[in-house]
C-alpha cells in the first residue's frame, strides 16, 4: 500500500510550491491562491498523520477541518481587502502597494 512518507513528500512539495507562489507572484489574488496551496499541504499532512499514526483519536482530522475552515474565512477576508485596495488604487499588484517602506 501507499506508505506515509509518500503523503508527507507530496505535501512537502505542495507546500514548497505554495511558498514559491507567494514569493514569486505579483498579483494579490495569486498570492492568496498560493497560500491556499500551502494550507492544503498542511491539512494533507494532518490527515495523513492522523490516519497513520494515531487512528482512533482523529485529532489530526479535526485539525484539518479547522484548517480548511480558517483558510476559507481567510480567503474571504483577504479578498475583501484586495478589492478595497483595488477600489482605492485600481491595482491588485502587491509590489505596487509599496508606498510605505524604509
Amino acid at each position, binding site marked *: 500500500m501507499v506508505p506515509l512518507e509518500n503523503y508527507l513528500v507530496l505535501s*512537502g512539495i505542495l507546500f*514548497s510550491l505554495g511558498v514559491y507562489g507567494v514569493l514569486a507572484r505579483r498579483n494579490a489574488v495569486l498570492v492568496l491562491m498560493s497560500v491556499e496551496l500551502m494550507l492544503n499541504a498542511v491539512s494533507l499532512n494532518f490527515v495523513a498523520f492522523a490516519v497513520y499514526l494515531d487512528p482512533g483519536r482523529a485529532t489530526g482530522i479535526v485539525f484539518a477541518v479547522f484548517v480548511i475552515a480558517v483558510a476559507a474565512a481567510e480567503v474571504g477576508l483577504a479578498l475583501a481587502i484586495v478589492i478595497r485596495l483595488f477600489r482605492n488604487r485600481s491595482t491588485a499588484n502587491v509590489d505596487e502597494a509599496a508606498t510605505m517602506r524604509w
Partner: protein
Amino acid sequence: MTTEVLWWIFAVGVVGTAAGVVLSRTVVHSAIFLILSLAGVGAMYLFLTVEFIALVQFLIYGGAVTVLILLALMLTRMGVAGRPEPVTGAQAPFGALVALALMATLVAVAVATAWPGDLGGSPEAVSIEQIGEALFEHYGAPFIIMAVLLLVAFIGAIAIARQEDGD
C-alpha cells in the same frame, strides 16, 4: 496495486496542477489549475479513507473558495482582458531558490524521520462518528471560538468591502 498506480497518477496530477497555479502566465489559468489541484488533494483524502474531509474539501474549496477567487478576479478586472502585465515578480529566482531549499528540507524530513507508531501498513478508516465525537465533544472549545472567528471574518469582510460615500 491498482490503488498505488492511481495514487501516483493523482499525486503527479496534484503536483503538476499546483505547479500550474504558481507558474501559469494568466491569472485565470492559475485559478483553473487551483481548482484542479484542490480536487486532487480531495482525492488524496479519499485514498486516506477519510471521506468526510474529502467531502469538506470538495464543498468548501471546490465550491466556495474558488468561486470567491474567480469573483475577486472579476471584480479586480484581472485576466478578463488578461492584462498583458507580468504576473511574476522580479525576485522569482530567489523565491525559487528558497522554495527549493525548503522543499529539500521538508522532503528530507519526511523521508529521514522514523515516524513513531508508523505501522508502515495501510491507513485505517476513521469513522464519521469518531470525527463528530472529537469535533463536538472534546474540541468543543475551539469549535466555539471558531464560530466567533467566522463571525469576525464575516463582519470584517462586510465592513471592509462595503461601499461607502467617499468611494
